[in-house]
């Protein structure tokens, strides 16, 4: 029987389906207010940052404060373009999934700044260990869209030979690690890579991303412990998009005042950043990368954002949150905000924006046509069947030789 009063606290989100979402009592530090500590700062200098919010784009879409990265308009337009491309690509792929062209898809809608701005603030030679929701990095680093699609539709040109679920990209040439379906495993791996880079006397920085829900995993703790102990040149990005499938972020956060604050316990400078503010994400990432490169060790960045779409094509959020929550999100949409900033600077206008959207849409449609010419999961051609026996280890032992015979291929 249900007891009237739960006997321990089980946190619940403010709003459930049917409720009117209202974020007005979410007290967020205004853009421009947070100070920018030196890159040689200690964790103590970031106590306020860990519970505050680093922002650079204010309500009027103007760049303000110490965290304004002062990017030139070309760079801003490039960022906007990557974000729009990410969104257009996501939309199209989701549609194609609905049409049965691929088994599964995951959008990053509303979170495009998190990946695009970070990728642009890093060097292309810096290593990334993303989760499944940072496809924006690939666009920012110029990965071929047809190649990305070939992976997602598991066709004969999938660089992963059809072995991984869609969106679980790998791109070694682009310094993009193999995405794992197991949450959080990449976080401590990134520390190992970062130490490896130092070992080889390279000045490469390593960045990794996990979600708010994933901070609860043991690997989160292992990663921060390693980085704190060995002072590894790594950036830990926690993408707080408020949801972990159907679970709101309070189940991972508990009584902690933010997720960034967790980094302080390891003596790591830790900053909460407006994740929908392209400029802020850029500036914070650049700051963390500079720190790492200068030998000051790791930084934790909490990117405060909102997962505007479903978790994946297997999920329907109407069962657990109000439909309008995304539109009520007080930090807005990262594309709109950067676009308006550029318009305010008179470096952009609605017409150019529409033209760009149309162009990118065409690019995506055209790319998909080409990708499909190399096959689809449903109709093939796929990677040859015998390829399932390859790459298990460097050599092929008698067991796989027999098994391949057994399969008759």
């Amino acid at each position: 029987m249900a007891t009237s009063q739960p006997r321990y606290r089980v946190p619940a989100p403010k709003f459930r389906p049917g409720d009117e979402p209202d974020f007005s009592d979410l007290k967020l530090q205004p853009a421009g207010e947070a100070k920018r500590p030196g890159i040689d700062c200690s964790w103590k200098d970031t106590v306020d940052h860990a519970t505050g919010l680093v922002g650079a784009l204010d309500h009027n879409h103007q760049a303000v404060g110490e965290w304004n990265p002062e990017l030139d308009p070309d760079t801003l337009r490039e960022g906007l373009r990557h974000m729009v491309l990410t969104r257009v690509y996501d939309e199209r792929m989701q549609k194609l999934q609905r049409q049965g062209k691929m088994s599964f898809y995951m959008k990053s809608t509303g979170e495009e700044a998190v990946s695009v701005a970070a990728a642009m603030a890093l060097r292309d030679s810096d290593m990334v260990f993303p989760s499944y929701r940072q496809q924006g990095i690939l666009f920012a680093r110029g990965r071929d869209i047809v190649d990305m699609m070939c992976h997602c539709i598991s066709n004969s040109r999938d660089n992963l030979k059809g072995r991984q679920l869609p969106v679980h990209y790998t791109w070694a040439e682009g310094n993009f690690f193999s995405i794992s379906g197991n949450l959080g495993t990449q976080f401590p791996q990134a520390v190992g890579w970062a130490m490896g880079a130092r070992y080889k006397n390279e000045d490469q920085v390593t960045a990794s991303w996990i979600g708010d829900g994933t901070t609860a995993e043991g690997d989160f703790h292992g990663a921060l412990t390693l980085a704190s102990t060995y002072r590894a040149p790594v950036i830990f990005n926690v993408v707080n998009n408020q949801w972990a499938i159907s679970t709101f972020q309070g189940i991972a956060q508990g009584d902690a005042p933010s997720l960034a604050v967790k980094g302080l316990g390891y003596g790591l400078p830790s900053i909460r950043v407006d994740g929908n503010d392209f400029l802020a994400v850029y500036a914070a990432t650049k700051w963390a990368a500079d720190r790492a490169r200068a030998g000051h060790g790791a930084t934790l960045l909490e990117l405060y954002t909102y997962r505007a779409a479903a978790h994946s094509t297997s999920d329907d959020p109407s069962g657990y949150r109000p439909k309008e929550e995304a539109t009520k999100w007080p930090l807005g949409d990262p594309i709109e905000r950067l676009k308006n900033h550029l318009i305010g600077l008179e470096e952009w206008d609605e017409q150019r924006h529409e033209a760009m959207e149309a162009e990118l849409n065409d690019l995506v449609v055209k790319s998909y046509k080409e990708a499909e010419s190399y096959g689809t999961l449903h109709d093939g051609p796929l990677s040859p069947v015998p390829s399932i026996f390859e790459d298990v280890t460097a050599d092929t032992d008698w067991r796989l030789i027999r098994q391949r015979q057994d399969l008759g291929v």
Partner: protein
Amino acid sequence: MAKMNMIQALNSALDVAMENDPNVLCFGEDAGYFGGVFRVTAGLQKKYGLDRCFDAPINEAAIAAMAVGMAAKGLRPVAEIQFADYIFPAIDQIVSEMSRIRYRSAGQFTQPIVVRSPWGGGIRGGQTHSMSPEAFFTHVPGIKVVIPSNPYDAKGLLLASIESDDPIIFFEPKRIYNGPFDGQADGALQSWANHPKGEVPEGHYTVDLNKAEVVREGSAVTVVTYGTLVHVALAAAEKSGIDAEVIDLKTLTPYDIETISDSVKKTGRCIVANEAPRTSSFSAELAAQIQEDCFWSLEAPIHRIAGWDTPYPHAHEWSYFPGQQRFINAMKSVTETV
């Protein structure tokens, strides 16, 4: 009696258990408000309250440990691991703690826990939503492993598991949550509605944890398997016309050696099958024990059907999953051996 698919049957088992015993509670990632990504815990939070069915942080080790602590205190926790592929972070708490606490405390503390988890392949889940990691747990003294193959058993076995005073790893073949699967990927989807084991009593009943079931009698060869492959084996017997006796194991540890031996001694031939990669999979244990117990009756080597010794591939799932054709080939080869 009602028509239920396996999800409904499992949900009904939890409902009955929670209704009957205030010490039963359940939790897991997305298991609370939403009722689980497969909806097995749907409605339970609403019915029984926030503290009896709730969402857990994404930390499988902590989920298992929470169950360990609660069970030691006298509760009967049912913990959900969202996919069997994600049970590995919890395996230390299961192997080093849950399984041994009765033994190491000489019975001062016990561990009446069920760890439920959607399991197995055939749903285009790729390498992280398709694993069949049962062999790991069958190697651990002090825990039992249970895998149902239909709604009726699912409910009865889950209730028996919750009522058991020892920890049980309860794997749910997600491919057959909604209907049986004959191993032909391009065949029509089937439903439990027309299957006799889709008839499920609404109230309380249990299915014996120590008993395998001969689900098809036959004289030509014994096929021992569990979960989804039970249906593939049955379909292969029908299709091939080979008079196979099919045994649904249900409980893997301790497995029902008597039912298996009786059958193999009768047929003289045996196939053991599982979805997991072949080497050191549970069919190895079965084959090793059967050859020991039935050596003098065997007229051909025991044949193992299993997944290949590779990670579970995504696009070529149907070249990996042991489908009908592999069963038919095996049945032919085993029965033709003289």
